[in-house]
């Protein structure tokens, strides 16, 4: 259900993982590489992951989703390596009996991913490059580590 891959992501393959006879809805989140960030033009991106721990953290997110929305089913694939503008970086699929749950659980998954899943992005511009950290602009981990407890 959870994967880190160096190859282009097959969106339909991720969707297939959450297909269920009890589902009345599937939401798909597709994260793509944006050209302009705060007016600065990105030429390409490079993603790096700590794959075994990233998969563990995806499983942690699935556990949290299961506690909050027991009927939801989630699958996540994140790509690493060199990505061009408009390439797909991440796909999150959630199925559930009703659409509201599928929307909510899907948004929860991407927000948690940005907190606890060890994946990093390096932006390359025409005049340089930089590893990007902490997109949520939090004070970096006041407790020394991200909260693994379920958050509302």
């Amino acid at each position, binding site marked *: 259900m959870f994967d880190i891959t160096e190859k282009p992501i097959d969106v339909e393959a991720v969707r297939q993982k959450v297909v269920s006879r009890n589902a009345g809805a599937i939401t798909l989140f597709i994260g793509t590489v944006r050209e302009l960030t705060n007016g600065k033009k990105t030429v390409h991106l490079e*993603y790096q992951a700590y794959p075994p721990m990233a998969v*563990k953290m995806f499983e942690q997110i699935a556990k949290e989703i299961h506690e909050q929305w027991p009927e939801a089913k989630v699958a996540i694939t994140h790509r690493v390596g060199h990505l061009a503008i408009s390439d797909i970086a991440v796909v999150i699929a959630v199925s559930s009996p009703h659409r509201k749950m599928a929307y909510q659980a899907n948004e929860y998954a991407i927000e948690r991913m*940005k907190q*606890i899943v*060890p994946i990093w992005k390096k932006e390359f511009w025409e005049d340089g490059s930089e*590893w990007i*950290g902490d*997109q949520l602009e939090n004070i970096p981990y006041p407790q020394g580590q*991200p909260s693994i407890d379920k958050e509302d």
Partner: protein
Amino acid sequence: MIHILLFAHLQEVVGESKLSVELSDITVDQLKAWLEKQYPQLSLQSIMVAINEEFATDTTMIQSGDTIAFIPPISGG
């Protein structure tokens, strides 16, 4: 012997993605201080640490055979 994994900019500062060092029975904090001494350009103050793929704190003890990953602020998605 412990195994250290470095990611993102930390990898570039140290010039390696993996290190194996003959240390054990120290805290995360002590390991951070030791590494900063070995690599003076390295700053590990706001860097999270995972031991054997579980998040740890600065006071967690490191045992021989552990894999310690230094995890800079993440930016997936």
